[in-house]
């Protein structure tokens, strides 16, 4: 039985992903997006291998250097290698994005499903919660939370979860509501299948696609938010290299060396382009409307 389930899962993902990857790679935009995202993930995983220096190794004599053969992107005010810090910053950026979006998707989906399936009043209350969270500018909410709990990676992730789960919640609710009326769900019920089975076999596989697309488009926003908070000095603790705190260093020493600022912007831009390209392409692939047109 366990074997059977595993095989089933495999079949499912095979059927889904091989076709998706083929169609992704076929389009130049998708290919570029996929390449960028994959290379960032690889860089994050093997940061120690790629980084030419220890990112927190001080070398005060060689501080604020411009780009050179030794330091491709120059050094910061403590003589640390900017490139190495950016490479290690990738870990932070992707971890923050991955963990917090994952949690946001989970919480949002559960709440959204409850709202979509539950009684009207519950739907109303949950929607009110979503609307409420949405009515804060994220940065404002973040400021309040950071001063409340103190700046740390955990706080940032909590903020991202708290501010982005309504997006997924709303999406899930819409999906659930339309699924609720979908004939294949009705027919699963008509077959006398139990609720858990319907959820696992019929509802989730059919809602996860759009949510994944939104999540992938959300990654750059989340990374930018982390960078923004770190820029305001409310982000990760030093000496953890984060793109935002490197940007902040760059801004602080903009007169001494513009290279820190310029180079800290590059990975942010690249990762943004990567995930947006990927997300757009995924949407083109998954969106049945566009599917029909071609």
């Amino acid at each position: 039985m366990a074997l059977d389930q595993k095989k089933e899962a495999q079949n499912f993902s095979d059927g889904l992903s091989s076709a998706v990857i083929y169609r992704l790679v076929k389009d130049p935009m998708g290919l570029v997006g996929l390449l960028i995202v994959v290379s960032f993930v690889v860089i994050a995983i093997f940061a120690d291998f790629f980084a030419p220096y220890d990112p927190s190794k001080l070398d005060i004599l060689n501080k604020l250097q411009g780009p050179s053969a030794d330091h491709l992107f120059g050094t910061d005010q403590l003589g640390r290698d900017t490139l190495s810090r950016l490479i290690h910053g990738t870990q932070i950026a992707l971890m923050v994005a991955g963990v917090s979006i994952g949690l946001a998707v989970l919480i949002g989906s559960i709440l959204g499903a409850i709202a979509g399936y539950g009684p009207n009043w519950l739907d109303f209350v949950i929607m009110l919660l979503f609307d409420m969270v949405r009515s804060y500018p994220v940065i404002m909410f973040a400021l309040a939370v950071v001063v409340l709990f103190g700046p740390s990676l955990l706080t940032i992730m909590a903020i991202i979860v708290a501010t982005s789960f309504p997006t997924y919640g709303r999406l899930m609710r819409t999906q659930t509501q339309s699924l609720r009326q979908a004939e294949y769900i009705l027919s699963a019920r008509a077959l006398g299948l139990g609720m858990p089975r319907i959820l696992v076999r019929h509802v989730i596989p059919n809602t996860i696609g759009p949510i994944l697309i939104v999540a992938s488009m959300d990654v750059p926003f989340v990374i930018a938010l982390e960078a923004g908070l770190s820029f305001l000095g409310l982000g990760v603790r030093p000496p953890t290299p984060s793109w935002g705190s490197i940007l902040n260093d760059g801004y602080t020493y903009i007169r001494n060396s513009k290279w820190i600022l310029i180079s800290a912007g590059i990975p942010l831009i690249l990762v943004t382009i990567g995930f947006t390209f990927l997300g757009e392409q995924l949407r083109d692939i998954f969106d049945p409307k566009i599917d029909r047109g071609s």
Partner: protein
Amino acid sequence: MFRLKLNRTITRFFRNLSLAAIVCSFSIIGSINAAKSAELNVRLGEDFTTLDPAFWQSGADYTMINVLFPKLIEFKSGSDWEYELQAAESIEQVDELTIKFKLKPGLMWTGNYGEVTTEDVKYSYERYIDPELNSPIIGDWLSLKEVEIVDKYSGIIHLKEPFAPIWWSTLPYTSGAIVSKKATEKAGGKFTTDPGATAGAYKIESWTPREKTVLVPHDGWNGPKAGFDKITILPIQEPKSAEIAFEAGEVDITEISIGSVPNFKKSPPTGGVLDVRPTADYTFLGINIANEDLSDVRVRQAIKKAIDVDAILEGAYFGVPEKSTGLVAPGLVGYTGVVPDPRDVDGAKALLAEAGVSSLSLELDVLNTAEFITAAQIIQANLGEIGINLQINQLDSGAFWNVAADRKEALQLTLNNYTSPPDPSWSTQWFLRDQKGIWNWVWLDSEEFDNLHFAALKETDIKKRETMYYDMQRVMDESGGFLFIMHPPSVILYRDNIKPGLYPNGGLKLSAFQLTN
């Protein structure tokens, strides 16, 4: 400025504990205009919040109050802390409890509030001790008994007890500012942003909150002629923006961050003058004696030994300031001049081993400004070498200034900067026993220190006083709770066609600004 330390609200980008946050000069365009109509654009780190001398908080308030309200005596601009007569024609200390003064006639209030009289002086000073007013800086006048009116221009200040700092931190300071009795009473006994009447060298022509304040000369001023036809004060928090704005000609005088000094020295902006002023302020690493993990003095001494102060000065402050010798800054009574031992990693390790500490994790609370965070990271690396794992808590100013109250004895290391006027007594008062957890974040608990502090307050013999401050600094050093890093200079950048009015620590004396020819 001294009181800036009391202000927990200044934003992170601004070097918040230094008065010298306020500066100015001529824009490139402005300098052309200046030939015709002499205008000055001054950058302050923030907008003023209150103009009432009894309630002032920020450096901007301080600067504004100094230019808007007359004082009997005022600090001179220049490099030494000396006062000169301003509203007073004469002033003398008759005895420890009595000060006689006589006003210059002809100083007029704005509006229709007439001349500045003894009545106004009496009202201005006595309102501090009125419990109804609830002034948070009542301490400046706590020793006041009353101001006696002799005639329209003469009066006598009677004190309840001797108070030496009255000539340093009361009369020439904001608490010495004279407000209009009629206008203030009309406003209900206190005011915030609309004083009703002012009588300084300049008066406010217009105020756009958080954008700009425009000052023009006050006709009723009887002091030295105002140097400019118009002074525009622009609140710009971020020193970096201010520097860029200076280069772009948008401001004429600004304080800049120490980190920018090397660059400006290397390539000074056209027509810019860099003025580095020493201050009595002190930046130090506080090690909480009362904390469980730090209760062994050997651990504290080990931490002190392990830290490379030179590296901090180079890394965070670009080698601009000198290494500190202790609480008291050069040029002040009690300056020791004894340079501390250089970094000694082995000695630090030995001390730790002696104390039986093998691994230690500590937290360092620090304000989240670039310099502090940079310095904190150097400390982190230094302590890592002797096996101490340091976590840096970077806090916004609101949280940082509450950290001792929140965490009490759990507080471990703090990197701090306290401002100070040119008298050491101001600084030693924060480390008294009754200041533990308030400003004494090191929990220094020394009866000897307390006794010396009070004795020194009353001591008039310079030599004896000096010895007392030497002793106090020895107590601090022996406690192992303090690692003094430097006395941060304030760095001011201004156009070469103005002669700025600067207090010795770089604070702006707007009334003294002049054009050069």
